[in-house]
């Protein structure tokens, strides 16, 4: 079956995200230092390092649902800041939405991300333009669904989601923060990129880097690939 994602690919996605977070730890913290409490990079890296350690020591993660649950539960216990429950919820909801399958198809992946977005909204009560991770995640989920609806491949859809997430992340710079500690700064929050949205963009970047490699080659549709 083309356009599907195995548990192994999902693991690579998570590990790629962890690497990106580690590589960008200081950058994320610096962004947070401008408008928050300067711990986003540290917190996310602590959480994702713990996630990788948990994956390393786990015997065999049987299903996408189990994988995402493990990631989510690890994050809620190790991140510490608001990103813990928010990213934790993101993965927990994805896990719930996956249901009892061993391999995630394109539609299932899109449903999982949509559920993740809804979970983030329920948890953080953020709306469009509040200068939060929502501003990167929401356009990405929309773009993913739109690309799939238009008949695109999962790989192309993930790339579109990444592009939309990056645009959404960039748009947070001009926004006035209305949630979290950044909101205490009022007007002074304008002109700084939101660290949460930046982490979401990294999550999407990791997906765009990992998912085509497997799904495109397994489907044999990627041109120019060996």
């Amino acid at each position: 079956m083309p356009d599907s994602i195995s548990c192994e690919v999902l693991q690579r996605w998570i590990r790629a995200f962890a690497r990106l977070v580690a590589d960008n730890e200081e950058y994320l913290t610096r962004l947070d230092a401008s408008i928050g409490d300067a711990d986003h990079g540290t917190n996310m890296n602590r959480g994702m390092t713990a996630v990788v350690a948990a994956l390393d020591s786990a015997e065999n993660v049987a299903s996408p649902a189990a994988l995402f649950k493990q990631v989510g539960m690890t994050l809620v216990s190790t991140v510490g800041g608001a990103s813990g429950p928010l990213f934790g919820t993101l993965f927990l909801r994805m896990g719930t939405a996956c249901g009892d399958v061993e391999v995630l198809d394109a539609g299932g992946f899109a449903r999982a991300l949509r559920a993740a977005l809804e979970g983030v909204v329920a948890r953080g009560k953020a709306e469009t333009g509040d200068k939060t991770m929502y501003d990167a995640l929401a356009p990405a989920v929309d773009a993913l669904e739109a690309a799939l609806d238009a008949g695109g491949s999962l790989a192309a859809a993930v790339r579109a989601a990444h592009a939309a997430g990056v645009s959404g992340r960039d748009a947070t710079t001009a926004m006035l923060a209305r949630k979290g500690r950044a909101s205490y700064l009022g007007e002074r929050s304008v002109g700084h990129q939101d660290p949460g949205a930046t982490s979401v963009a990294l999550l999407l970047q990791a997906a765009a880097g990992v998912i085509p490699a497997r799904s495109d080659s397994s489907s044999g549709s990627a041109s120019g690939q060996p």
Partner: protein
Amino acid sequence: MSSQPAPVGIVVVSHSRCLADAAVALATEMVRGRDARIAVAAGLDAQTLGTDAVQIQQAIEQVDGPAGVVVLMDLGSAVLSAELAIDLLGDPTARDRVVLCPGPLVEGLVVAVVAASGGADRHEVAAEAASALMGKQSHLVPAGAGAGAGAGAAEPTEDEPAEVVGVFTVANAHGLHARPAARLVGEVRTLDAQVRLRNRTTGAGPVAASSLTKVATLGAQQGHQVEVSASGTQARRALEHVLALAARRFDEVDPPAPTAPDAAGVGGGRPAPACAQPASPGIAIGPVLAVRAAPPLVPDEAPATAAVEWRRLGEAVAAPRREVQRLRAAAVREVGETEAAIFDAHLMLLDDPDLLAEVRRGVDAGQGAPAAWDRAVVAVERDLAALSDPYLRARAADVRAVGDQVLRAMTGQPADAVQGEGILVARDLTPATAAGLRRDRIRGIVLALGSPTSHAAILARSRGIPTVVGAGPDALAIPAGTTLVVDGGTGEIVVDPAPAVLADYRERARRQERQAAEQLAAATRPARTRDDVDVLVSANLGSVADARAAQASGADAAGLVRTEFLFFNRDRAPDVDEQEAEYRAIAEAMGGRRITIRTLDAGGDKPVPYLRMPAEANPFLGVRGIRLTLKHPALLHDQLVAICRVARETPVSVLFPMVSGPRELLAARTALAAAAADAGGMPAGLEVGIMVEVPAAALKIESLLPHVDFLSVGTNDLTQYALAADRGNAAVGTLLDPLDPGVLALVDLVCCAARDRVPVAVCGEVAADETAIPLLLGLGVADLSVSPYAVPAIKSRVREFDLGACQLLARAALGLADADEVRAAITRWAGRCGLPGYSL
């Protein structure tokens, strides 16, 4: 009682394990011995800040029972993690038994624990805890947004029960004045009920019982009947609490002398001759001064947006609140809880929902925050001033004072000014206020609070103003104009002395003056020891006036020019020209003698508003002295340029404070070189030195010596750092003796390393301590820098000693165990040396 059902469980969620544990300890004190089910879910571990949804889930499951659980959280992720924890609960039916409470963590927890142990159900517990936030809510929720906005996350409540009404008779001697009113308002604010009061006797009201200013306008005097009406979920409880409180006279202990309200209306009896702590020697006789602040002006400026103006007010209220809280804490420590409660009334005014709502209306209508605040305060003041009861009328002045404090904080205007000449009586003095005291106007100082080691006391000593501290709040009740005798050498205060007593004090004062005059006559001669070694006795200055006094006192130099006076009480730093003019004026007043100018020595304990210094938990261990000025290179540059310009004309040394290692010193020297380049080149005679006040700097003095021309030991800070005892904390005051052999060892180290290379001065308090002088000389100190008024006495003291004998004394002292032993050794030594006049 074991058959009683288990109480509601409480879960405390915080980023910090320490915070949560401490909050629980605080709250459970309230219910000692009674059953409390509390679990903590805080921190990722004992050290790492953060919240963990799984930990919270487990904590909830630990205290869950039929009565359910109330969860209290601190901020941000604590709320999100707690919500997530509910989703994670293994038993889905438990979710309905858990209430997430929006109350503030600490206050809410205290209230919740009490309510839960009293058998309240989880909704009552949560409601009680949530309303512990009312002060903050009224502060932060925009007017007109309605109560619902602030309580949006609270549990839905039942239909409000009908209003309940009761009546009490005021039993307190002074009626419902500030203290009992504060107690009443405090009680009402903890409950989820709208409580209104009406004075049945006079018909005044009804007013909101949550507003201190409104309660005061009831004019409720002893014997008046006050009607209480309450509505809301806890209406009945609120009514019961208020009536019970009234029956307890609002927990007020009436003054011991049950006098009828006196005609003068100023609080009755005079305090007897009180004995406070001596802080600056000398006898002062004179009238109590009226401290009257020049009223702060409401600036004529275009307001910013309502949000910005509102935030401006919020920030401005914070500083006076901290100041009042500081005074309150000091008062509790020094004079007891009952007396300190008066400060609660001031704090409540700063949180008064009615007052803030009025300000908010003004701000929303386009007024600037200062204008809106001033109008609201004036309105309250007018209401109070119109009352017939003199005690309550006097509260109008309290309102004005607190209002002015906020206005000053908002607009950066300087504080109190003293009118006339006489004796200043105050609660305490901030370093900035103390720095502005003039000896020609202030004959003596009496502080209700304070310690002999505080900055205020040191400044008073440096100006030669007789001072006593810790006199208690009664001192504040002495009416302006009353004759007062203050003996700063013994701590005695005599109010309105009898003629014989007055004559006795005048005679003592005359004797002291005669001796001082003899010393002064000899002061222009050098201070030469009996074995013909000249010791420099120079002066510590903080103004041009000090320089004149130093010159008149025979000071050999200005050993320390404190420049802070140029930087305090203004809204931006002085420019180069202004500083240059001041430094030149000081040099001229010193008659061309060398002046040692210390660069700005500010910090969290001596803040400079325009430098935007963040609040620090330990300002004495924070960004102060050279650490601060290196962070403000433009400011340091300007000051060094001004110093260099003056140094081209007259002998000047520059002194860098709070240096802890060569890196800072070299950075400062680089800044000096750059400044010199802008001032026409490095002045030929400019000498560079550092304050040795950080113990580490003393210990590694070898690394600093190559880069300095002289050293100046700041014994005040060196002592507090070496002995780990806060100068502002009276409780550790006895430790703070610079004659502690540990401190002496540091001074010895510095002197030994510097011998034959650079001179060592001592510019701390100890240099003017006549007991300590032989010891300092024996250690190798070549320059004693003291307050201008102490110069003649110190010079005459130095002449009594033989340096060789002093060196033997110093060696012996270094081997002793504590300052008491050192002082005893000095006394024995003085006796052996045939200095019978040398008493301690």
